[in-house]
């Protein structure tokens, strides 16, 4: 399945958002995720089914003004 993850194209075997995070070596309580511009809560990542062409954003805390 082809996905866009943080603006970069990826070809992955993962079918859920949780599997994708593991496959790409993302881990930690400080991450927030969105699929196609909508928040996906941490508790829902395991059952969230990804579809070909989905756009995933994986964000973490950063300095801000």
């Amino acid at each position: 399945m082809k996905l866009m993850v943080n603006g970069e194209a990826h070809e992955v075997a993962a079918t859920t958002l949780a599997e994708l995070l593991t496959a790409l070596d993302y881990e930690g309580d400080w991450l927030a995720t969105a699929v196609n511009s909508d928040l996906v809560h941490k508790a829902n990542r395991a059952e969230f089914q990804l579809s070909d062409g989905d756009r995933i954003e994986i964000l973490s805390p950063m300095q801000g003004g």
Partner: protein
Amino acid sequence: MFDLLGTNLFSRLLLGTAQYPSPAILADAVKASGTSAVTVSLRREMAGGRAGEQFWSLIRSLGVKILPNTAGCHSVKEAVTTAKMAREVFGTNWIKLEVIGNHDTLQPDVFGLVEAARILCEDDFDVFPYTTDDLVVAERLLEVGCKVLMPWCAPIGSALGPVNIMALRSMRGHFPGVPLIVDAGLGRPSHAATVMELGFDAVLLNTAIARAADPVGMARAFGKAVDAGREAFSSGMLEPRNVAVPSTPTIGRAVFL
């Protein structure tokens, strides 16, 4: 002590966390300023990265209130989704809402701002809207549920200081019971003192401290200026006069002929 939406803050200075020379200087500046609330953001994390974890760990160690922002968002959808992601990560309903409308001035898209504020207030966020000094926009933001307003006094990072004192004074007069925080455009401690003397409840700044030659010293200076301005406002300042008035009593002065 400053009660901001039910949270007691020790200082009326809110501080941004970006652009410091190092994390250690950021931490020292936060302490020197006396602030008890800082702004943070969310950005893309690299695969396998730990940058977010390290920053978040530093901020938590400071023991300050967190005000996440939606900086860089140019649409209602972007801002709303970013706010929801921030709530999940930072565990607070507070959100500094930015919907940028112009690339050059970074002035807010006030129409999108009101719409995003409406959506987030309905979702139980405490929305801190980064807005202009326009009274009508301010009224709309209050109508959709905002309980605090954050007008700019000049473009973000410009260091110009308050460029429209009349508008700020008018805003204070129109919304006497609403917490007003000047956000963006402050360059010097005297700028902060000026808006605090006008009766603003607090200031939020970043660049003027982070990009100073000595951010820690500048943080301390801004902290003092904010306190001085507030105390001056509370103490009743003398109105300007067009004629001289002697300060030394004239009665009893010697007469030399």
